[in-house]
């Protein structure tokens, strides 16, 4: 075979992109899916992309889902690469999730509590039977029954327990510094709690699920109860320096999880319940709960617990929770490594030659 130095990388890329575009669209005799359909009917996908893309923009997230053929990590990457070009004007005041307009709120620790249990739109009690009617063109379901919203705010379970001092508080608010932003500053250790929570909120749902799950199976266990999970819309407020007071800039949909964990107490602290916290863009209970478990596991040093499990290792968790980083580095192995491999080939050949000589001596 004659060897010609490889040329044509440029044309290969152009052709690959053309093929990809064709494949993305699929059979043109089938109507194209529109962004509004993705937003309305694939909302959980859009939510996941917003959370892991760490940009709250349902419309752009829907575009990303379409552009990536439903590859949600690829979609989150698209959103992040856009996000990074945006200027950062500031940060919001702390969100008041007690004032959330709740669509769903369940507590596993009290049968009833102020604000009540609100089951909301959940798959929890569906029977997972494929609905073959959906394979045909479905007619819209009848409207769900409606009731008046409770006007009162819905206090967080942590605040209810706080009354008896049975649970740790929120801790003092650090007002002397800006919140950490890992998209602007590199991760450093020891990592502050706000940096950790930011990393988890951007982290991969599957990773947090697996790490949270591992704590339940004895790898850094912390005896969790779901204090509550709530889903709904929360107002975002900022304080523009030129105004000096807070203004409402819009609502975001959030899932919040307050996990309650045992703590036997120490020489300096009486026994008290401790907390793990999860907060995620959109409807994402699985991730919020995984996040809360991992958050609590990483706080082992505050309670003098022995750190033996992966979920308790802050460096391990924070360096490996980001799926954009992970997918990049894993998939970069597809890139050419001829040079490194060649150096390995020559080294192994040399070592084998020398080993063979030694055998014959």
């Amino acid at each position, binding site marked *: 075979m004659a060897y010609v130095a490889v040329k044509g990388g440029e044309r290969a890329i152009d052709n690959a992109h053309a093929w990809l575009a064709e494949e993305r669209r699929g059979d043109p005799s089938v109507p194209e899916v529109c962004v509004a359909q993705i937003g309305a009917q694939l909302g959980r996908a859009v939510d996941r992309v917003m959370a892991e893309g760490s940009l709250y923009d349902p419309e752009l997230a829907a575009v990303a889902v379409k552009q990536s053929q439903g590859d949600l990590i690829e979609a989150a990457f698209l959103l992040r690469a856009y996000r990074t070009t945006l200027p950062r004007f500031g940060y919001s005041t702390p969100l008041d999730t007690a004032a959330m307009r709740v669509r769903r709120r369940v507590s596993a620790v009290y049968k009833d509590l102020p604000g009540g249990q609100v089951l909301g739109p959940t798959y929890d009690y569906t029977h997972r039977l494929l609905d073959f009617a959906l394979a045909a063109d479905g007619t819209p379901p009848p409207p769900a029954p409606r009731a008046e919203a409770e006007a009162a705010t819905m206090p967080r379970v942590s605040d209810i327990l706080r009354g008896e001092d049975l649970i740790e508080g929120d801790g003092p608010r650090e007002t002397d510094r800006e919140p950490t932003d890992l998209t602007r500053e590199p991760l450093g250790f020891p990592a502050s709690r706000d940096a950790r929570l930011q990393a988890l909120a951007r982290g991969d749902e599957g990773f947090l699920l697996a790490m949270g799950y591992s704590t339940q199976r004895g790898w850094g266990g912390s005896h969790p109860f779901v204090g509550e999970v709530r889903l709904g819309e929360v107002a975002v407020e900022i304080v523009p320096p030129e105004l000096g007071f807070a203004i409402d800039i819009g609502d975001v949909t959030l899932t919040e999880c307050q996990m309650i964990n045992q703590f036997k107490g120490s020489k300096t602290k009486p026994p008290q319940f401790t907390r793990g916290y999860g907060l995620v863009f959109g409807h994402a209970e699985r991730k919020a709960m995984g996040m809360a478990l991992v958050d609590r596991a990483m706080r082992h040093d505050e309670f003098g617990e022995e750190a033996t499990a992966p979920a308790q290792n802050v460096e391990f968790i924070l360096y490996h929770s980001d799926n954009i980083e992970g997918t990049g580095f894993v998939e970069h192995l597809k890139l050419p490594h001829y040079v490194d491999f060649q*150096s390995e080939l020559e080294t192994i050949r040399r070592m084998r030659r020398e080993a063979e000589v030694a055998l014959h001596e």
Partner: protein
Amino acid sequence: MNGYNFAYLDEQTKRMIRRALLKAVAIPGHQVPFGSREMPLPYGWGTGGIQVTASVLGADDTLKVIDQGADDTTNAVSIRRFFARTAGVATTTDTEQATIIQTRHRIPEKKLREDQIIVYQVPQPEPLFKLESSRAETRRMHALAEYGAMHVRLYEDITRFGQVAISYDYPVMVGGRFLMAPSPIPAFDNPKMHMMPALQLFGAGREKRIYAIPPYTEVRSLDFEDHPFRTTRAPHRCALCNADNSYLDEVVTDDRGGRMFVCSDTDHCETRQEAGHAGTGEALVREAPVGSAARGGGMKP
């Protein structure tokens, strides 16, 4: 390009990166954490190198991008296009004409000059990571210049194999102070880093680290007095330009053991061919049948 700043990154980000670069140049071989941005190319594709290049690139620069020594590998093409598109700078494949060379896994064969900058793409900036997985701990080890573990690792290779078995990303000491990962260049390229007239910059995007070697800095590959550092290349001549001292790629030409060795540095090879150097153009065949390949990689023309 419409809607984007020159070379993609906004000026504040470039300033932040330049500050990190200045610190890196001031402390040769020391890893400087920086606020690495999310780029429109994936981590692992050269986001660190791209950010460094974007921060030092000017409108009158001429950029060369190589991957595995070649200008035409898909990723090199893609990165070169990225800058042609976002910065509109001149690009070249000619090592001599380039003012900035971004590279993955190679240093050009041609000696670089004082008026050139070479930017390395770095996947793993921490030379100690296989010995100590915690970055908090490796940071401490660097601070104390506590590099005994790496010497032990080399020593263990020598006792087991009679030689150091690291063939790429071979650790170096920079300026006699910092242990540094040279990025996954073949050990063959390590000596080129020593006293190089060009400024060497290293960017690791995913790991959010920048480091540098200023011109004319001492860069020593780690070794022992009785086991001096040695480089490896395929013991052949380039089949296209007949070079006997360049780093070679091995190209498989058939399924019966046929191989052809050609320069990995495509510009070097083409320049030599234009100057009238010609190889045999022939593949090598394996001496022995495949079944007895264990005898070693002996090749003859």
